[in-house]
Structures are given as structure tokens and as C-alpha cells.
């Protein structure tokens, strides 16, 4: 019943002016790789039955997490989605705490009570993944209000998917953020899908028009090019922190895996999935690095180091304790323990 394709599927092709140095890009590449390897590892852990529950991987979307976070500091806060591993790791959640959580260990940053849909690390301003589509928007809105009221030089970021655009909360939060000029960056990860249905069948509008309605600046960004994402974030974050009001970055990206692990994506054209390889964020960055003179050795060194870090973290996580029921029960309220 969709009327028209609501979201253009080509991202702004203009290359960002004055990109990062080779070292800086290599650092970003390493982060992309960290998210990728960590999630690939989770995928196998899940199919081996080592990780329970629902897990939503962000493979193919890592450049959004890594690019946005490159413009943020620890004082800046983010609220995430059900697909939040990349956000958490890129914001600085340590891999041990991350894997320990996914393996439901007491050493997990959420002590094994939250799991994949609730990874969080308050110490780096990661206010949590969220199992409720759209909810993170209002959490970030509140965090932005706190930044403003307390006079902090900080920005809050709300991550959300294109499917979440149908939730009324999006409208309420954009209106409020614009009305009060809150230091809030809206980051839409537009991967074209909401679960098993293309979002073209869910939305009658384009985010660009919605943002314009509230007078919020909107940029369309190639979400698979970490350089483009980082540049876009750097272009708006300082102004947001300084009080210029909210902005929207719409990052066109690609969901490579199923909606969650175990989803065989039968509803999707295999050719379409195969074609995604050309837009792989890792490949795009690697090509850029090659163009800047990096050689294969640089990349394989990075790969080895990341691999080792992931495996070490996993080993640590596996050796962790099971959470204690009485301790959990005593921690529903503050100071009850």
C-alpha cells in the first residue's frame, strides 16, 4: 500500500572536505574492525548456544557508530536501540565488560541482568541499548535537558532506526528538542528495513521533510563511510554543544544480517544481500586507507590485534562468575542490598 519510495536509497556522494590523517583513519578502521569482530564472534556464540535471548547485530552499519562517536567525548551521552552493540563498543564500553554481559556473567557491566538489548556503560555516557523501539529518543531528550540545565558543554545523541520513525515519540521529541533548542543530535540509521518489512511500506514520508517541518537541520550521510559520518558529526556537534539547537543526521546504511540472529532473511532477495559487499564499511575504509598509502601489512596487523583483543576479552568473560540471585533481588532499589 506504500505510496512512494519514502527514503532515497543513494546517500550524499560528496566526499567530505579535508578528511582525517592516515593515522586517524587507521584508528577508525581499527574500531570498525573491533565492532565487526566482536559481533561476528557473538554470531557464532549465539549459534553455539552460548548466548541466549534475541541478539540484533549491526554488521554493515558499524561506520555509523564509529563515525558519530569519533566526534564525542565522555561527557557526551548517547541513548541506543535494540541494535546497540556497535554504539556501546564505539562509545568506549570495554570488551571484557561487553562480552561478560552477553555471556550473562556477574562481571558484565549490567551484571548479566540486561544482555544484548541493554548493554550500557554509564562511565562513558552510554545510557543503554533499549528493547523498546523509539524509547531511546526520549531518554536522550532528557539527557540533553540535563546538559542544558546544568550548563554542561555536552551533547546528547539519540540513535534510532528508520522503522522507529513511525513511532509518535519521534514527533514529540523532535518538537520538544526544537522548541527548547536542546543540545540533541538525532542519528537515524536508515537501513531500509524494520524487521521483515521494507520501511518503504511503513512510512509515507522522508525524514528530511519531517526534520525541516520542525526547523531542525538535516543531513543525509553515507552511513557506510566512516569518514563521511565522522565529518558530518564533527560539523554539527560543536554547534549543538554551544546551544544552536538540535540536528538530524540520516545515515544511509545496510543491514547485512537478519533482523536478529536466526533470521534466515527468506523475505529478502539474495542478490540484494550479495550486493551489500560493495558497500561494506570495512572495505570502503580499507580502500580509502590504501589510497592514502597504507599497505596490507597495516591492515592485517590491525586485524590481528583486534582479533586478539576480542579473543582475550572473550576468554576473560568465559571465566567469569554466574550472577547471584540474592544480589540481583537486592539491587532492584538503590541501597537495598
Amino acid at each position, binding site marked *: 500500500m506504500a505510496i512512494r519510495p519514502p527514503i532515497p536509497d543513494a546517500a550524499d556522494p560528496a566526499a567530505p572536505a579535508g578528511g582525517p590523517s592516515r593515522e586517524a583513519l587507521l584508528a577508525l578502521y581499527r574500531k570498525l574492525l573491533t565492532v565487526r569482530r566482536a559481533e561476528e564472534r557473538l554470531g557464532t556464540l549465539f549459534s553455539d548456544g552460548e548466548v541466549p535471548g*534475541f541478539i540484533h547485530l549491526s554488521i554493515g552499519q558499524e561506520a555509523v557508530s564509529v563515525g558519530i562517536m569519533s566526534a564525542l567525548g565522555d561527557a557526551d551521552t548517547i541513548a541506543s536501540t535494540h541494535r546497540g552493540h556497535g554504539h556501546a563498543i564505539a562509545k568506549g564500553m570495554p570488551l571484557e565488560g561487553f562480552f561478560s554481559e552477553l555471556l550473562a556473567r556477574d562481571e558484565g557491566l549490567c551484571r548479566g*541482568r540486561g544482555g544484548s538489548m541493554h548493554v550500557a556503560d554509564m562511565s562513558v555516557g552510554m545510557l543503554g541499548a533499549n528493547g523498546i523501539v523509539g524509547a531511546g529518543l526520549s531518554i536522550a531528550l532528557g539527557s540533553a535537558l540535563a546538559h542544558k540545565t546544568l550548563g554542561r558543554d555536552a551533547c546528547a545523541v539519540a540513535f534510532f532506526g528508520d*522503522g*522507529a520513525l513511525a513511532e509518535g515519540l519521534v514527533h514529540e521529541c523532535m518538537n520538544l528538542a526544537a522548541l527548547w533548542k536542546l543540545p540533541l543530535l538525532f542519528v537515524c540509521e536508515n537501513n531500509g528495513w524494520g*524487521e521483515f*518489512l521494507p520501511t518503504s511500506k511503513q512510512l509515507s514520508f522522508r525524514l528530511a521533510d519531517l526534520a525541516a517541518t520542525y526547523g531542525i537541520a538535516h543531513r543525509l550521510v553515507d552511513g557506510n563511510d566512516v569518514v563521511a559520518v565522522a565529518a558530518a558529526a564533527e560539523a554539527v556537534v560543536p554547534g549543538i554543544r554551544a546551544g544552536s539547537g538540535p540536528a538530524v543526521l540520516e545515515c544511509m546504511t545496510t543491514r547485512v544480517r537478519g533482523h536478529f540472529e536466526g533470521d534466515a532473511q527468506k523475505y529478502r532477495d539474495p542478490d540484494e544481500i550479495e550486493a551489500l559487499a560493495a558497500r561494506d564499511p570495512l572495505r570502503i575504509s580499507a580502500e580509502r586507507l590504501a589510497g592514502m598509502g597504507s599497505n596490507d601489512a597495516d591492515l592485517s596487523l590491525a586485524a590481528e590485534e583486534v582479533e586478539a583483543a576480542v579473543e582475550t576479552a572473550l576468554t576473560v568473560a568465559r571465566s567469569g562468575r554466574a550472577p547471584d540471585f540474592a544480589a540481583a533481588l537486592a539491587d532492584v532499589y538503590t541501597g537495598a542490598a
Partner: protein
Amino acid sequence: MTELRYIRAVNMALADAMEADPTVVLIGEDVSEAGGAFGASRGLRERFGEARVLDTPISEGAIAGMAVGAAMSGLRPVLEIMFMDFTTLVMDAMVNQAAKARFMFGGQASVPMVLRTPHGGGLGAGPQHSQCLEAWFAHVPGLKVVCPSDPASAYGLLRAAIDDPDPVVVIENKALYAMKADVEGTPPVLPIGKAVIRRAGTDATVVAYGAAVRTAIAAADTLAERGVSVEVLDLLSLQPWDEAAVLASLSRTHRLVIVHEAVEAFGIGAEIAARMAQIGFDELDGPIMRVGAPFMPVPFSKGLEDAYLPSAAGVVRAIEKTME
């Protein structure tokens, strides 16, 4: 005899209701092309057309309100909310609109809609995808609430709910979707408000619903080995619930235990216990015991979740306690 899975029974009930009444439509996220997140509506789009099986955007508030308006205007919508935790987003539509329309418009309108939603843990789905919130709906005059415990009741109660002229919340348990049972032909439509004795007994009554019925039966089996005869009553309907059946059983056994997966405090069991502490007071030979989830969010870790969910051992202890 054929083998019927719980989720398939739901699917059959939807299909048979749509076949019987052209005004029945299905509404929800991914119910149409994908056939439902848990497969409840698989094949129905192909059979009844996309105009009657509607994939919606992620807009729970609007689709619930839409179901109310559609029901007031001649359709019988069956709304699926993917996880009961997300019913937090449809409370206004259900409570301030659906539940009250008939009463507050002086009987001019009725709202023949159904809200289907799965509750319950056991899948490691964590704090926002496992809750049992049925007590909220049971507290609201104008709503009915049912909770099937097996494939036959999943069929029979859903058919009854769709036929009902008033709004009915049908709560399925995710952990039961794979449950199989042998049935003879199409299961019968069940009356809303009637409980069923799943196991007769004389020493104590255990009242349960949904997945907790299995837990209760397991506890009864254990105690049978020790010579204690436990009656297990499956409520099936939570609003209205079968007060007469509970009282009758209590009057035979004089001991009462209530089990559910929802948080014990302020749960469904509280009302049953409270009612029996009033109208069944003279029949009670021991304290009324409840077995429900502890006062904490549903944890992610398997170990924690196992400890969280009510167990047969816990029910056995409760029965023993009231028989002391």
C-alpha cells in the same frame, strides 16, 4: 486424533474466525507478509488477502486506537502486539477508549476487538520482552482477559474472544507456542469465564493459568507420589474469573495455593486469594499461599531467570506449607 501445536491452534482460530465472519481483520506489525513474529498469522494473507491482514508501521498507540475505531464502525479487528511489554504503549486505547466506550456512551456502542499478545519468560529475552502484565487489564472494568494454557484452549478462547461483542485481551505464553497436544478434530469454542479442573484431587487446590498450569501439574505429580492428592484448576479466564469453581474446589479440599508466572505482588493471584479470604473464609484450613515471580524485573541470565520463574518445587513447598 491429530497433533496440534499451540501456535498452530492460534493460527487455526484466526483462520476459522476469518472464514466465518468477513468483518474479522488482523492488524499488527509483521503479521501479514511475515505471518507474525511468532507465526500466528502465517498463510492468512495468502488466503484472505492483504486488505484483511494488515502490516502496520511501528505505531502501537495508533494501531490500537485504530482497532477501537474500526470496531465501533463495523469491523472485528484482532490486533497483535508483538510482546506484552509493548502493551505499555496501548494502555490509553485499551483502558480509556475500548474498555469504556460501551458504558460511557450509554450502551450505544460496543467494541468487538481482540488484543492478542504473548507474555512470559524462559527465552532469555530480558527485562523488556518477558513481562506478565495481565493484572493491569483485569483491573479495568470493560475489558475481558483470557489466558490459554494449551493448544485446545488457545483455539477455543481465541474463537470466543473474536466472537465476543466486547474488547478481550488474549494472553498467550511464548514458552507454550511450541507445545503440542492431541486433539480430536477442531477444538470447541470455550466459554469466557469458566475454569477447568485439569487434575482432580482432594487434599489441596492449586489454581493456575497459562504456563503455570504445567508447573502446577508437575507439583501435583510429585506430591501424588507422596500420597497427597492435589486438585489443579486452570482458570483460563482472568476477567471474569470463575469464582464459583475456585470456591467449590476449595470447599472440597480446604487448602488453597495460587500459582502464576507474573510477579506475585499485586498479581492476579492477589485477587483470587482476597476473594477466597472473604467468601471462602470458613472453608480454609490453612493459609492461602501464592507462588509467583519475585519482586524484580525479569533477568537476562539463564541462571537468574530459572531462579526467577515459579517452579514445581516452589509449588510443592507452598502446598506443604498450607497443609502443615
